[in-house]
């Protein structure tokens, strides 16, 4: 009970932090395209960049369910800030916790927790998205050094990252590496003109004869790539599941609040039954989404073998309801919903992204269908 109380206190503090330090500035972050370094430092100082890491690696030691609640609090306030947690803490951090050797954990996890090193996940390429095995970024080995060449695209936090978890193809098979920016041979270029995630420092990354020592290989050459990538994406999907719920809840709160303040035809608009229908649907969706996220979290906590599929279902569902509820929230706001002085305009754009990242909804449907065709078959 004491430990649960400690974790609940962290979530309550995160809510307060989000309310005072993130949400009021989310529009500004987007407008400037910058997630301020001071904010990242402050989050690191509070342990937020390692919220799910064990305490031995300077983490907050949140269990999967509480890490979900924590992600929700940050994600409600600003999707770009949540994006930092998704790639740095969930995708890269959890993949290293699971698969890095002791020396690698010692070298990278604590600096990541302290925010001295920001990490990103460099899998996607200009011509390769979901089909990860077809990647074109290549490596060759000379002595004890690997040389990496190629381009990665749509890399969240790529523009400010110090560490890149890179997947490349070579003679020994597809391999995962940690590339350190300060060792040279890495060029990043910010991608502009994005629909959303404008403060998530999304970049194209170029590796040009980038030298990586053999001790930066995660697991082993050839053998371990699919374990590293699948672990990273599984944690990424878990983060996005809560991120989707976060946007849906934020949109619901915005539409409910607006409907109680806005008057038309001489009465507050919540009195209109068609508005009540929209709100009723939104509330039902967020309760269902929360149930799925919590179930996935509990299964992850207990090490249940079906946690991966439950996480996929949660991600698929909450990213969809985030979009649906955001559309409705804009509708309830009328003209104001189409105006960037109202947060629902941003939520509407951010929600679309969640149906695409960490595996599109269509890929999730295939995975869920494959599971369902077996689980629900009667012999």
């Amino acid at each position, binding site marked *: 009970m004491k430990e649960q109380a400690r974790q609940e206190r962290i979530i309550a503090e995160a809510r307060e932090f989000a309310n005072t330090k993130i949400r009021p500035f989310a529009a500004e972050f987007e407008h400037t395209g910058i997630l301020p370094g001071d904010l990242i430092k402050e989050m690191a100082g509070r342990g937020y960049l390692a919220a799910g890491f064990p305490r031995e690696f300077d983490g907050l030691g949140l269990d999967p369910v509480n890490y979900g609640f924590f992600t929700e609090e940050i994600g409600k306030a600003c999707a770009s800030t949540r994006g930092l947690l998704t790639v740095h803490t969930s995708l890269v951090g959890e993949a290293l916790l699971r*698969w890095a*050797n002791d020396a690698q954990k010692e070298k990278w996890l604590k600096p990541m927790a302290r925010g001295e090193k920001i990490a990103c996940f460099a899998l996607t390429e200009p011509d390769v998205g979901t089909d990860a*095995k077809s990647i074109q970024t290549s490596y060759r080995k000379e002595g004890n050094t690997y040389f990496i060449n190629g381009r990665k695209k749509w890399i969240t936090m790529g523009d400010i990252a110090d560490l890149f978890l890179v997947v490349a193809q070579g003679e020994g098979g597809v391999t995962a590496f940690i590339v350190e920016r300060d060792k040279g041979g890495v060029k990043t270029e910010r991608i502009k003109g994005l629909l959303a995630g404008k403060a998530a420092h999304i970049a194209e990354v170029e590796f040009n004869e980038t030298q990586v020592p053999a001790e930066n290989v995660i*697991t*082993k050459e050839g*053998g*371990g790539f*699919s*374990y590293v*990538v*699948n*672990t990273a994406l*599984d944690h990424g999907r878990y983060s996005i599941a809560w991120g989707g719920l976060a946007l849906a809840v934020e949109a619901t709160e915005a539409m409910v609040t607006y409907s109680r303040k806005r008057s038309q035809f001489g009465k507050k608009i919540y009195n209109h039954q068609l508005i009540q229908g929209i709100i009723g649907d939104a509330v039902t969706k967020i309760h269902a989404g929360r149930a799925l996220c919590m179930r996935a979290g509990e299964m992850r906590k207990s*090490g249940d*073998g079906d946690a*991966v599929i439950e996480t996929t279902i949660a991600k698929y569902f909450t990213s969809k309801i985030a979009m649906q509820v955001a559309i409705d929230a804009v509708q309830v706001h009328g003209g104001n919903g189409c105006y960037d002085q109202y947060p629902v305009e941003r939520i509407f754009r951010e929600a679309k992204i969640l149906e695409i990242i960490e595996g599109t909804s269509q890929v999730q449907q295939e*995975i869920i269908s*494959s599971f369902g*065709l*077996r689980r629900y*078959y009667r012999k």
Partner: protein
Amino acid sequence: MELNEKIRRFIEANLVVFEDEAEFEDDDNIFEMGFVNSLFAMKMVNYIEQEFGIEISNDDLEISNFSTVNRIVNYINEKK
């Protein structure tokens, strides 16, 4: 339940094809036959660690260690 049977059941629960279309012997390579995907590799490692209390080292992360029922069984027996 015998170890072979236990492993076989886990594989059958995670096939990407239907179990009635997937006949395989204990020495058949289930990856080469297209019966499982790369996600299965991760699930199998997690399953072995959870179910048998074995910590799989990075050096053992060869798909070949987990590509047939017999190889998985041998691996578990060696590590137990």
